[in-house]
């Protein structure tokens, strides 16, 4: 699910809530609450919400009293908000909506399988109902979903298991699939259909759900027990208005790329026009091995914001500040907690709930001034150099492959890791700019290439040093495919729609180092290739022109053909000897 979507949402929420509370509007539901943690960090959606509220109130241009206004002021449901601002979640246009739906489904399926330790087998079907209407089905062999949870997971926005933890996973908030369902409902009126089974001895359940956007609550339309051949797994079907497009932003390109970044997954894809592809397309797995399980980590103090820190003090179970710092953050020992408190001039025995805003600010500053060990990095699971390379080998036919997995590093207290894969030559076109596949936590990023730190790092690298052509400040030109993966417990995206990585200097630097490492390898290959071509040319040269030297001498000196052949032999010997082959 889109993290940034959640940013936007929480931003909106955070922006609005204080007012709502101040005016004694009844408080809203709890499920969304923790989101306020990130309040203020991304405010992109906030102005639009505010405006909407304000404008309505201001319209009569007359003498509306505060009391009258109060009558119109009410809570906005998450679902309602996103139904209006669907572009925040990637449903801005029909073709993107279709892609986003597939994406959310597959991301969820992969996350579920991995968490349950099952090698993912995923099937994506797209059936075209008419010109603009499609029925999308995503089926996995995951652990299934417990019956009682199904309506909440699929029928409510911001419901899920992944938000309240810092851990590398594709989805985060649990908006995506239910948003897709909501989009389907909005455009076609058809409910989201879920079939799931949790084990061989359990029955399969079949649900039809709609979301009540007013209350952000699921309405179960149908709830049946059905026969299902698979022992466990989930199938989600959504019907929506969409458009099926080819090219860079196509569903197929997405599946191709996600299988590249998830070499352990087997994905079968049935396009809406199977006649062209002879039925479904299979993207087979390269390995049976699941990526290593990643640990959940606590936030590192360097990355924490003041507001979040204050919230943590309010919510903590510890009885004093020292304990709170030690228990709720990673890499904070008792000694370091003391150091922070001393520097902040806050008694370490102070009850966290009694810490004032000023004190919290001093603690926040003191944290930045204290030397704290970098966060643990074993919470990040790279794809791995070998798998990256085999995935590339399966994806493209090239002469040369290289891959690099960098050591994990930290930006703003968040551990992250960069991987770069590269394929060169072979079937790749030599005259075009290189293709760059961008990934964040194994999810391909298909939009906003220009805004992405990955693109920036590629164009800022001097590829001429690696024997490639490169117009000033642009992507290099040559028969090359680049693949850059950033894995992190928290990938910083530039915008709500989770399509481009933000330009943190630490991240840019790591990407550049990865690219350079691969670049050096490919330069070695190119040089070798050129040397060989040169050698080949010289050999051809010898065969071609030595006889001409002999003929020239024969013409002048008029010797016999036998002598001429002797000259050819001698000269060939001399020249062969002088070259190292």
């Amino acid at each position, binding site marked *: 699910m889109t993290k940034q979507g959640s940013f936007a949402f929480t931003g909106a929420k955070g922006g609005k809530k204080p007012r709502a509370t101040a005016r004694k509007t009844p408080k809203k539901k709890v499920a969304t609450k923790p989101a306020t943690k990130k309040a203020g960090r991304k405010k992109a959606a906030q102005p639009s919400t505010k405006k909407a509220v304000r404008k309505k109130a201001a319209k009569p241009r007359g003498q509306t009293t505060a009391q009258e206004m109060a009558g119109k002021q009410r809570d906005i449901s998450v679902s309602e908000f996103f139904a209006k601002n669907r572009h925040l979640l990637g449903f801005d246009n029909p073709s993107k909506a279709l892609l986003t739906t597939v994406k959310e489904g597959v991301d969820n399926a992969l996350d579920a399988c991995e968490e349950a330790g099952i090698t993912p087998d995923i099937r994506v079907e797209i059936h075209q109902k008419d010109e603009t209407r499609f029925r999308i089905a995503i089926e996995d062999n995951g652990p299934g979903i417990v019956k009682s949870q199904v309506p909440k997971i699929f029928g409510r926005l911001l419901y899920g298991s992944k938000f309240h933890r810092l851990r590398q996973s594709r989805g985060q908030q649990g908006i995506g699939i239910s948003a897709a369902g909501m989009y389907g409902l909005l455009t076609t009126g058809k409910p989201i259909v879920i079939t799931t089974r949790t084990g061989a001895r359990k029955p399969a359940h079949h649900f039809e759900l709609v979301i009540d956007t007013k209350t952000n609550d699921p309405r179960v339309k149908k709830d049946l027990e059905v026969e299902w051949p698979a022992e466990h797994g989930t199938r989600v079907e959504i019907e929506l208005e969409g458009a099926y497009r080819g090219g860079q932003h196509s569903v197929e390109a997405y599946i191709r790329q996600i299988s590249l970044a998830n070499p352990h997954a087997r994905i079968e894809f049935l396009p809406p026009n199977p006649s062209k592809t002879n039925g479904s397309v299979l993207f087979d797995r390269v390995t049976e091995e699941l990526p290593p399980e990643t640990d959940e980590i606590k936030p590192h103090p360097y990355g924490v914001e003041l507001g979040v820190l204050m919230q943590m003090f309010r919510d903590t179970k510890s009885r004093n500040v020292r304990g709170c710092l030690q228990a709720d953050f990673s890499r904070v020992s008792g000694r370091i907690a003391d150091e922070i408190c001393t520097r902040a001039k806050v008694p370490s025995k102070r009850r966290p709930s009694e810490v004032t805003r000023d004190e919290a600010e001093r603690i926040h500053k003191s944290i930045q001034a204290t030397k704290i060990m970098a966060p643990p990095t074993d919470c990040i699971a790279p794809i791995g150099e070998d798998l990256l390379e085999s995935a590339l080998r399966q994806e493209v036919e090239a002469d040369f492959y290289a891959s690099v997995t960098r050591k994990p590093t930290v930006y703003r207290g968040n551990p992250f890791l960069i991987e770069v894969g590269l394929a060169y030559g072979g079937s790749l076109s030599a005259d075009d700019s290189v293709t760059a596949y961008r990934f964040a936590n194994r999810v391909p990023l298909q939009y906003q290439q220009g805004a992405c730190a990955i693109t920036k790092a590629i164009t800022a690298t001097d590829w001429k040093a690696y024997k490639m052509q490169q117009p000033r400040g642009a992507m290099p030109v040559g028969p090359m495919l680049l693949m850059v993966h950033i894995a992190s417990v928290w990938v910083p995206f530039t915008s709500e729609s989770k399509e481009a990585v933000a330009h943190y200097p630490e991240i840019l630097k790591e990407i550049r180092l990865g690219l350079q490492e691969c670049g050096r390898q490919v330069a070695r290959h190119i040089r070798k290739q050129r040397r060989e071509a040169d050698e080949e040319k*010289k050999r051809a040269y010898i065969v071609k*022109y030595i*006889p001409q030297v002999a003929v*020239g001498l024969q013409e002048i*000196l008029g010797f016999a053909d036998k002598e001429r052949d002797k*000259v050819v032999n001698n000269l060939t010997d001399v*020249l062969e000897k*002088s070259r190292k082959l």
Partner: protein
Amino acid sequence: MAARKKVTRKKVAPRKKAAPKRTPDAVIQKKVQEVRKKNAKLNALTVDLIKETAKGVHQRINRQGKPDLHFPIRSLKNVSYSQKKGYFEIGRQKKTRTLTVNTVKSFAQTLRMMGLSKEMVESNDFATKRDAYYQSKNWEDARFDEQSESDAVMDDIEAMFSIRGVSREQLRFVPDEHGGAVAGNLVVLDPDRETGEVERIDCTRFGSGAYSIPSTVEHLSFETDAKFILAIETGGVFQRLQSHKFWQSSNCILVSLAGVPTRATRRFIRKLSDECKLPVYAFVDCDPYGISNIYRTLKVGSGNAAHLSQFFCVPQARYLGVTPADIREYDLPTHPLHDVDVKRARDALKNDPFFQAHKPWQKALNDLLKMGVRAEQQALAKWGLNYVIEEYLPRKLANPGQFLP
């Protein structure tokens, strides 16, 4: 100068047949035989040199070594000028081309080009650069793809043999360029290539046209009673002097250079001057190009073909005009010097060994730079179309001692 005004053409003395003493046939035949003998000797030398070079390569190969060829370096850096000799001379710097994988192609082409040359010497034939390029199309893999490649190889061979005293013409590679035009009191004796029968070409009898210098001139001999040779830069002035029979009134031979003189033109003037003991006067525009390119090349040869200068220059040539001093003296209409002109003049003063050896020239060039103007030959027409014939040239010719070197 104030007295100078437009003048109308004076009546020329009644036309008298220019009749240089006719050389007796026996003398001509003797000359022809001499030339033939000389040529036969040169031909034998040329063939020997080619064979000798090839033999060296052959032996080296059979001894399992890498053969090499030596060429003199052709650039101004490797050029010297001595007033005594009177022409540019190529220095001793050489480049060696060893037969390696990278050079095997041009090495083969060089040898085949030498083979072509030998064949032509033996069959008494010749080829222009373009001819040679097309000839190479029979050479299978050694063929040239562009004429520029064959020209480069030819230049190398030419340079290689020139230091042994053999010219490109002797190698039977002839330039593909127009020779200059000749008119005046001169009979050119041109023996037929096959029969040896001598064609007598009277250069007074071309009417309003002129005799065109052939691309090779070694076999020619001359009869003349003219007093000097006048080499003229522009076709326009040549045309004027020719149609008004200036050669008759001044008893001279007119040669049109048409810009920088070609090798054949230079060689023709040199030969004519040497054999008939005639002084050569150059009449060119007064600008850095006329002085440092046209006149300099005529007199001492060109910088980038210094290996040829000993044959292709006219060290006895003197500079009649137009001089920078003339601009003032004759109050000539002028044009300002362009940047390229200034650059060319400065370059000549700084780098050209010829100008460095002659003080008067340095003074003249500096003068010109100071005035910042240039004047063309035809500027004299300001004083009347035929002013040049009636006033300027006679006046100048009265004092050849004052000509610039």
